[in-house]
């Protein structure tokens, strides 16, 4: 069903460890289900990802976050689903931007110490996946596994 459909994973600031773990996990999981996966992030986040997956076994396509936003606004590219990872107000703001500029079905993946409060502050249309996780990825992984795509 998902063959050829495009999925976007948007990384926030990479300072919270569970993000990279869950991005790699979710990218692989989506790819195995037939999704064409692209991961976007800051220069630092993309470098962390490429260093962990040097042969692009888990992630085949990466893109600079600002460049991607420009391309989506200019309608050069769009996606069917988008997972926006966030643990801060800035991440939440990026999620709102994707909600406004893209037609993708949006999932807000909220984690970190203040996950619950941050999750409540999201008032744009997004399906929320919220887990108070910083070092242990399992609570977030369990919530991601329950998502029906």
């Amino acid at each position: 069903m998902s063959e050829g459909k495009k999925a976007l994973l948007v990384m926030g600031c990479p300072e919270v460890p569970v993000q990279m773990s869950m991005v790699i996990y979710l990218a692989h999981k989506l790819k195995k289900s037939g999704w064409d996966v692209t991961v976007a992030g800051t220069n630092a986040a993309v470098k962390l990802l490429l260093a962990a997956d040097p042969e692009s076994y888990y992630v085949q396509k990466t893109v600079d976050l600002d460049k991607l936003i420009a391309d989506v606004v200019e309608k050069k590219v769009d996606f069917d689903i988008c997972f926006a990872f966030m643990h801060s107000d800035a991440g939440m703001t990026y999620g709102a931007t994707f909600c406004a500029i893209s037609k993708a079905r949006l999932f807000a993946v909220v984690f970190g110490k203040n996950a619950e409060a941050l999750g409540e502050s999201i008032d744009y249309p997004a399906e929320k996946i919220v887990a108070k996780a910083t070092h242990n990825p399992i609570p977030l992984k369990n919530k991601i596994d329950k998502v029906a795509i």
Partner: protein
Amino acid sequence: MSCIEQLKYKLYLERTSFKEAREYIEKNSEEVYYVDPGYKIFKDYYIIGVPPVAMGVRGNEMLFTYVKPCHGTFVMGMDSEEEIARLRKNEAEKIKKSLKKGGEKGKAESKPAPIRYSDIWKK
């Protein structure tokens, strides 16, 4: 990195929340305009934000929000008559569009008024 960081700018708020940045612009500008996320300024910066995204004008200076994933939201000010003119033009076009919509809607919804009092009772 956007070219914005290489331009001459002033920083009014640093590493704050988007909400606080928006409130700062609303309180400290002579004119406030609201744009959608993705609005392009200075050739290659697409505004990141939670709608409504406030942009301010104070004299020749345009106030706007700049968001960085690891550092939060900044309120920046840059002198640019060109960008201010574009912002005003954008707003004028929005008003024109909404007036047009209202006009068409008004036309569709309104029934022609009866010409004479006696016509009201005619079937």
